[in-house]
């Protein structure tokens, strides 16, 4: 199985078949403990794993922590992975990511409840004082814009979290990892049409949820603009 990446400079596109990397060889080398192979796997799957984490939690720092946890687990569990192709390995890695997020939320639920100083975006439109304080320390950013971007992205994350796990995995696999329908179907053990249907329902649900707050494109573009402004 060869992988196809949507945006990666490391992927050579001059081979014509859009399948520049033999993942089974990379997996073999990584299992033998070769650091270079492990780095290759890391670079290849980092965008997908991080996107999955960032879509599950609005806090970028937490998303990065959870992403780190996933890749450390990957290093520890490489010799146990039975997958011999990219779809199998991606499925395993996304399962690790899903379990890691679930553990994070489970631990957070067990923590004692506290009254947050931060107002949730669903409650009102007040500016987050804590976020402002943090952002104010960064002279390169406009705290107001930064806060707005964060709030907008929180809305998106809330919407994504209401999707089913399968719908989320389809979106990440299709939009971030750039896998074709056949590969995603192989990853999920489903038929191509089922993947397409999941993809359709995921985007449709997302659009409907975001439309309740504002226009979806507006939300995303606004967040994008603020990020770029930073």
């Amino acid at each position, binding site marked *: 199985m060869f992988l196809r990446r949507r945006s990666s400079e490391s992927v050579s596109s001059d081979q014509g078949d859009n399948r520049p990397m033999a993942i089974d060889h990379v997996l073999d080398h990584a299992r033998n403990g070769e650091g270079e192979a492990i780095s290759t796997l*890391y670079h290849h799957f980092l965008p997908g794993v991080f996107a999955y984490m960032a879509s599950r939690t609005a806090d970028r720092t937490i998303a990065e922590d959870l992403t780190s946890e996933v*890749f450390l687990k990957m290093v520890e569990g490489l010799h146990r992975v039975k997958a011999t192709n990219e779809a199998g390995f991606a499925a395993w890695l996304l399962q690790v990511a899903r379990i890691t997020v679930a553990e994070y939320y489970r631990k957070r639920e067990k923590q004692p409840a506290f009254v947050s100083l931060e107002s949730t975006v669903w409650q009102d439109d007040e500016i987050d004082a804590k976020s402002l304080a943090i952002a104010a320390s960064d002279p390169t950013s406009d705290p107001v814009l930064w806060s707005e971007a964060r709030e907008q992205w929180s809305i998106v994350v809330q919407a994504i979290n209401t999707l089913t796990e399968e719908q989320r995995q389809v979106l990440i696999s299709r939009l971030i990892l750039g896998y074709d329908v056949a590969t995603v179907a192989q990853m999920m053990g489903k038929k191509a049409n089922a993947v397409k249907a999941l993809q359709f329902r995921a985007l449709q649900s997302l659009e409907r949820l975001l439309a309740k707050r504002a226009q979806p494109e507006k939300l995303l573009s606004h967040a994008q603009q603020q990020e770029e402004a930073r």
Partner: protein
Amino acid sequence: MRPLPEYERLNHQLEKHLPGWQRKEQLDQSIRSVPTIEHDPESDALVALARHLQATPSLQVHPDFARRLEQRMLLHHVALRRQPPEGARHAAKTRASWLFSRPFVAYIAMAVVLLCSLLGTSVLALAARATNPSNPLYTVKKWEQQVQLSFARSPSDQAEVSLQIARDRLNALANAHGETYRQTLADLDGQMDALMQILNALPAGQDHNRLADELAALKVRARRTLREVLPHLSLPERLITTDELGHLGDAVTQLNHAVIVFSSHSPTQATISLTGNNFSPGGHVLIDQVLLADSGTLQNGADIFVVNWNGEWSPHTIGILNTDGTVAQTTVILFSNAKGNTNSKNTQTGNNKGNTSGNTHTSNSSNGVNANKQDGNSQNGNTTSNGSNSHGHKNNEIQPSP
């Protein structure tokens, strides 16, 4: 042509418009020849949403984070490689956890119980075969026999066990020496007595007769055995063995008293007259358990010995060693002069049980013989406080009878 399902239309649009998918989309189009869908408001909105999701910076990795995480991950990888292999760690952990697991402890307990029972059975089996009383296992055997005796409820069973114990003690006598011999002989005597008591309590009948016969046979065998071991024993053991033989009904010499008569002609000679029963010719006299070579003559139911007398002697025991190895002894000693006056005697009750030590002779002797020797000076309190004679003679072993 039938219109495509909405999910198919959306997928078609996504592959057409999303960045990086054009090449795939073109391939798909060439393969499947699906109709181009240019204006589908619903699909267009979803495609726009997908494009925004795809491009949103919130889902993009920061290069700094990517670099830091890569370094951290590789360091973690190096640290993992320095550790023992997972298999070895797992095996060690498994071993350790298995070691303290409940089933393992149960196995150990069972093994210990099994081992103890095997060991106990082996010890008991070995002890049962032990015949030497000096063997430590013989103590175990005795304990085992006592347990058997305590579990025997009916008199008949008790008699059987006692009989068995008596036989065992009899067998052990051949290998016993010194104190062990005395103890074993005492045990044998005790079992015989116990057996007699049980027999007396048993009603007349088949069991009684059978046990009486077995006891009689055991007595015969005991007498024979004791006679066999007698020549190999020391004098004290011979004394108690002779006594036991008499207890078993054997005809052995019994001394009532000894009379020592000093000659008026020769102060270095004395005549010892032993009075008692079952004298046999050829016996040798023992003064304080020291064998004198002189042999006696039987006259009127007494055994008479003429011995060379050391004037300093003050004997506590006078005995006789018979040719069959039996020994008799008495502490009732009368001193007399040639005229027949009895001047002195030991008041200690005579016995022939080998009371060879610890006898305190509190004889009040007005010492006729000594008075003669000592110009008539009376001597009171001619005492010796222990059995070790005061004449420099050892009262331990003697040579086998001539």
